[in-house]
């Protein structure tokens, strides 16, 4: 594996290999044996804001013993109008791997075509976020012992959340049964649903009603209010698609609630104390999974 650009480039075997490597990395954290990339330099190039992805890639690099360089677009030559192509070519000469988040779709594949060193996609616009998908699959497998046959509900703004597009594909690959719950105006785009059904024979149901009966995993994402011109409408939708204690009270006892974070109003803080809320544990899994990604991309 040289680059990690899209979940769609990976076979099930590739994904399984990342997940088993992540399990090994989790055991190595905090031990001297984890310094598998000592002497290497990783460049973190984030052209958009990020907390978890940026920090967990930094943590993963440091746990592996690699040095990390952080790139700030506002104080770099990008602010003077330097192209992405030139920026990538230049930083490719300084580092052994490039981790890139960029607002334009396809930008990371474009960068990978130009760079000699491995390139890892940390989110390209509304397109892909493959390391988040690996974290989600790793978390589900760790919590439930399997992915195949699980009933997974994806809830929220399924139209704009890139993590949900990649996740549906990953869940389909592993044989989960998926229910998509969103307001009609925020439904996931048909192309990815069709592709997942055609490639994996996945059962995908779309609805606007929340029902958690028989649900194994509830994966919630934020309603992206900034995309609404009518804030009143956004607030109204947010209230209807809220996972609060009243909803959780009647949910299955072994349900796992996941969220890519940041969460705002869609899950109120009182739910954080429910033992079924697993999103902080999920975020923590970002480190071993990204260690596995860095290691496999750099060392092969």
């Amino acid at each position: 594996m040289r680059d990690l650009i899209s979940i769609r480039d990976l076979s099930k075997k590739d994904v399984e290999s990342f997940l088993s490597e992540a399990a090994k990395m989790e055991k190595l954290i905090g031990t001297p044996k984890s310094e598998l990339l000592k002497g290497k330099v990783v460049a973190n190039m984030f052209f958009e804001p990020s907390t978890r992805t940026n920090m967990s890639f930094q943590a993963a690099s440091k746990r592996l013993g690699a040095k990390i360089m952080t790139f700030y677009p506002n104080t770099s030559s990008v602010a003077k109008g330097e192209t992405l192509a030139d920026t990538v070519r230049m930083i490719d000469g300084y580092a052994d791997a490039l981790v890139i988040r960029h607002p334009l779709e396809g930008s990371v594949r474009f960068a990978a075509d130009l760079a000699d060193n491995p390139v890892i996609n940390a989110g390209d616009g509304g397109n892909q976020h493959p390391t988040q998908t690996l974290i989600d699959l790793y978390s589900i497998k760790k919590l439930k012992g399997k992915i195949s046959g699980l009933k997974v509900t994806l809830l929220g703004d399924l139209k704009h959340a890139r993590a949900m597009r990649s996740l549906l594909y990953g869940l389909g690959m592993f044989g989960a049964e998926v229910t998509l719950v969103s307001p009609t105006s925020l439904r996931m785009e048909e192309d990815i649903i069709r592709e997942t059904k055609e490639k994996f024979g996945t059962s995908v149901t779309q609805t606007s009603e929340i029902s958690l009966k028989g649900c194994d995993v509830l994966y919630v994402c934020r309603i992206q209010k900034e995309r609404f011109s009518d804030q009143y409408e956004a607030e109204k939708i947010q209230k209807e698609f809220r996972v609060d204690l009243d909803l959780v009270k009647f949910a299955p006892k072994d349900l796992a609630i996941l969220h890519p974070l940041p969460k705002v109003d869609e899950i109120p803080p009182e739910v954080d104390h429910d033992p079924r809320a697993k999103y902080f544990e999920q975020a923590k899994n970002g480190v071993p999974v990204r260690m596995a990604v860095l290691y496999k991309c750099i060392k092969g």
Partner: protein
Amino acid sequence: MPLEVQRINEGTVIDHIAAGAGTRVLQILSSSYPLNGMAALIINAPSKKFGRKDIVKIEGVFIDEKIANRIALIAPEASVNIIKGGKVVDKHHVEMPTSLSALVKCPNPKCITNFERAPTTFIHEGKYLRCRHCERVFKPDELA
């Protein structure tokens, strides 16, 4: 009384264009070649196969494979007739290629190919074409 259009001696006739798509085929040709000779667009001609069809005739232009591929996006059933000395010397159907490179722009306004010097590539997936960069899928006529 049937409509008569003058024959061409040297050039290309594109036949079996789905009715309504002829104007766009002519647009592709006029943006790809200098059209100094006679050009004719026949719309809604009777067709045994389609009921109605469009036909484009252009004199002095012999279309190449790249342009034929682009025409295939909007007129997948079209046939190309190369005319030399008043006779058809080559006749073939346009073919949708397995991938299209550097031919058309990506319609996704957020695709990197619309911002940097990145040649577009579209990969055929059944009835659709997927942009190699932004991974969005499009119907062929959306790309033409």
